[in-house]
């Protein structure tokens, strides 16, 4: 939810132009102001770029990088050294910085993301330490004293009315950075990034190679930090103390202080942290103490930062004036609507399309064919032992068994999250043993998870959009300029339509705009189902899709599954409610303690003595 999303759509271009014009006026003023103010603007703009780039990784993908001061240093030192010692053209150095530091970021990301989260923060922290220590102790970097940076070329005479060129340059650089991040935020990649952050298995099962996307985003962020370093070199002196690990933490503070995962927040934070100490003239020790108290106070009392505070105040003013209605979305307690016939046919069309693209194997080839699967976690006991599991096309195949019988493990093996210790898995006649989750999506396999794994801060619509990741070609690259691309506009319309159809198909269209955090559990389950079948999979694996649903909701879900089956989708259904399973499924496999107890037509399995004993307890 960006601030822009609350502006009426028709006004958005006008508001954008007005904001741009205001920014231009500010730049003109700054470019004609005193040297002191220009110095402040330059530093604030550079830190604005850094904060925006850090928010890209910290806010959108949840990676708290403490390496940004180091990456920033690489850009600044490279610029100064290439210019002073090797006499490169300054405008050739900029792309070199972006690409070079971006490449360093990719390597650093690839190395440190082998294990994620806190480990990533520590590795990047050490990276910054190493860069600064290296810069302090080497002679070609000028040691502790540092180097004198290049001077930014003046405007040519016909542009001299514009004032100080370096001010324009840094403000344009900040603008471009912000626009790139804004483009990503408004693109369909944004929900996918948040899914990688909060619900990684969900993103992976939608076909996103989560590791590659994370590393790629970090690389982009690193490139921007390199660009900020290039800009910073024109500020005068480049020395190690300007890039210490405290600077890394400061950039993180700017992001959190301003408002993490917001467009404008990191810039506000950067401006505040840069300008406040320069403007408020008090005892420097007192000032630092105040700063520390501010860090603690904001985090403890107001963790969503300035932007959160502004929104809160805005909402209260709006409420007092009676302008805006209550901010909470309209949530009506109503039964999910009747399935829309048009929507069903739309999804069914997608199915036909999917079947047409299938790899030519005949309808007799099973959708899933597992042979002699065995698996153990680490060197623990066998969780699955010699399991054969075959799902015929366009059937619903129930997979039941007591807790701990290996149902979810078997499903994880089929979808590629785990690799079997022995045996083979074929999807539509193709051996997939060597393929990961992402590739198996290419065989038309979609799945849901036991306890709905979704992004709670996004709406149902945005969550369904995550499921469509594999249907938008080259999404990651195009997201950098998404709002400006004509092809993106077309894709965006198609995407919105598919999302609507898919939500209507599961009967949750009413809930499309509601944040999942505010929606009941049943809606989360339906959203998960909608996300899984939105892109037209041929095989659907549902891990306890009925858990926690009310009886009427169970019936509703059953009708959805029946419709999917009739449109040719093969379904694996893990379930605990035996009555429901035998009524709905064509075939049933019973697992107990990692072995198949019985498998076959539902009626036959139901009357099997052994099954009654181990599972039904009769």
């Amino acid at each position: 939810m960006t601030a822009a999303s609350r502006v009426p759509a028709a006004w958005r271009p006008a508001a954008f132009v007005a904001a741009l014009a205001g920014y231009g006026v500010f730049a003109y003023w700054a470019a004609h102001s005193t040297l002191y103010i220009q110095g402040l603007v330059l530093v604030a703009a550079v830190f604005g770029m850094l904060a925006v780039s850090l928010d890209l990784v910290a806010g959108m993908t949840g990676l708290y990088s403490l390496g940004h001061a180091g990456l920033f240093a690489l850009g600044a030192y490279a610029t100064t050294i290439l210019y002073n010692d090797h006499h490169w053209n300054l405008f050739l150095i900029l792309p070199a910085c972006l690409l070079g530091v971006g490449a360093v970021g990719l390597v650093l990301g690839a190395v440190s993301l082998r294990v994620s989260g806190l480990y990533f923060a520590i590795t990047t922290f050490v990276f910054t330490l190493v860069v600064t220590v290296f810069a302090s102790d080497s002679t070609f970097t000028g040691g502790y004293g540092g180097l004198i940076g290049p001077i930014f070329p003046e405007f040519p005479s016909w542009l001299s009315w514009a004032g100080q060129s370096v001010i324009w340059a840094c403000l344009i650089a900040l603008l471009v950075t912000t626009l790139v991040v804004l483009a990503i935020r408004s693109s369909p990649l944004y929900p996918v990034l948040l899914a990688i952050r909060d619900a990684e298995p969900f993103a992976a099962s939608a076909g996103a190679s989560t590791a590659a996307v994370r590393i790629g985003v970090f690389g982009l962020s690193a490139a921007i930090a390199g660009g900020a370093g290039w800009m910073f070199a024109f500020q005068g002196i480049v020395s190690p103390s300007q890039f210490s690990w405290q600077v890394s933490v400061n950039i993180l503070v700017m992001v959190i202080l301003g408002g993490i995962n917001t467009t404008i927040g990191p810039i506000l934070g950067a401006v505040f942290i840069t300008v406040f100490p320069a403007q408020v003239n008090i005892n420097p020790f007192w000032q630092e103490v105040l700063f520390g108290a501010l860090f603690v106070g904001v985090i403890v009392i107001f963790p969503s930062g300035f932007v959160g505070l502004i929104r809160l105040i805005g909402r209260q003013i709006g409420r007092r004036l009676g302008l805006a209605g209550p901010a909470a979305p309209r949530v009506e307690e109503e039964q999910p609507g009747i399935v829309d016939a048009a929507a069903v046919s739309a999804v069914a069309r997608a199915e036909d399309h999917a079947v047409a693209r299938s790899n030519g194997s005949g309808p007799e080839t099973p959708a899933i064919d597992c042979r002699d699967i065995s698996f153990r976690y680490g060197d623990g006991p066998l969780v699955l032992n010699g399991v054969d599991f075959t799902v015929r096309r366009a059937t619903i195949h129930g997979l039941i068994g007591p807790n701990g019988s290996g149902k979810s493990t078997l499903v994880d093996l089929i979808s590629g999250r785990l690799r079997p210790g022995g045996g083979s898995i074929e999807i539509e006649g193709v051996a997939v043993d060597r393929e990961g989750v992402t590739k198996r999506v290419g065989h038309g396999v979609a799945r849901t998870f036991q306890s709905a794994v979704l992004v709670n801060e996004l709406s149902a619509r945005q969550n369904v959009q995550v499921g469509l990741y594999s249907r938008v070609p080259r999404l990651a690259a195009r997201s950098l300029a998404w709002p400006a691309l004509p092809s993106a506009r077309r894709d965006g319309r198609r995407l919105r339509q598919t999302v609507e159809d898919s939500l209507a198909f599961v009967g949750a269209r009413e809930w499309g705009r509601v944040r999942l955090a505010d929606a009941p559990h049943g809606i989360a389950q339906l959203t998960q189902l909608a996300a899984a079948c939105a892109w037209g999979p041929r095989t659907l694996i549902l891990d306890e899709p009925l858990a926690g649903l009310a009886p009427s909701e169970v019936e509703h879900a059953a009708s959805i599954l029946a419709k999917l089956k009739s449109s040719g989708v093969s379904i694996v259904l893990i379930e605990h409610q035996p009555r429901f399973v035998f009524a709905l499924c064509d075939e049933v496999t019973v697992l107990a303690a990692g072995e198949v107890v019985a498998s076959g037509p539902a009626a036959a399995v139901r009357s099997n003595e052994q099954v009654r004993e181990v599972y039904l307890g009769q």
Partner: protein
Amino acid sequence: MMQVLLSGLAIGAIYGLVGMGFAIAFYVTRVINFAEGQLLMVGVMVAAWFARTGLNPWVAVVLGILAAAAVGAVTYLVAVRPVLAFDRFSFAWLVSTLGVALILENGAALIWGPTSRSFPALLTGTSVHVGSATLTLQEVVTIAVAVAAAIGFELYRRRTLFGKLGMAIAHDPEMATALGANTVLVATAAFALAGAFAGLAGVLIGPITYSNPYLGDTYGIAGFVALMIGGTARPAAAMAGGLLLGILGEAANKLIDTQASDWFPFVVVVVMLLVLPEGLLSVGAPFRQAVRRVRSPAGATG
């Protein structure tokens, strides 16, 4: 060589104590208290201050350690607990504990001035000969106290209910609370103990460094590196990490150049991170656990 080893052990014991301070707070709360180095400084400054007022230096030293422990406990209550109460998986404590570090460092500079002041000399006079090497009595005591503290803590953690409670809370605070554990009390105690370790390190190094408000930075980083080498599975491993770091730093000073200890430890850490991403001495396991929880709070699949 013997001299390098022993001097390394003496300085490494200080790193190890600070590293254990990081680890003790981390193993209960999964929070890295970035003000840990500043707690060392608090210990030094307070001890020096009391000594200047004419108090018996031994009493002053004990008061210094207690002050560091008290500040550690307050840090938890003011800057960490509210953050975790808001979102147990957030990293916002990165910022709030750094804020505490800023307050402590500059507050000390405000109160006692930014320059170095004297510290009561307790044991420096005498020297001890070990083979070809010479150590001050202070250094010998430092090594002995640090190793005793590490062993004592580890025994306490494993043998007493209170120590085991820490592990239970780290694993699942909600469950531990449901079973009747007072998580706030245990976590506050852990932060206080972490502060006491830093304070202890402070009064041991004080006679060499004198009292200075900026001591926290240097020893904070060294302690953090010790933590990374040693790992968090067993807080006492941070002591091993600190001793190793101390020896490596001294060796680098001797063999490469006199400034080498500024950067050599980082090279060691980088190589370690590259070759052993899981960490030396099992740094990986609890980190990975914390990481996994952060990445999939929904609990993923069953």
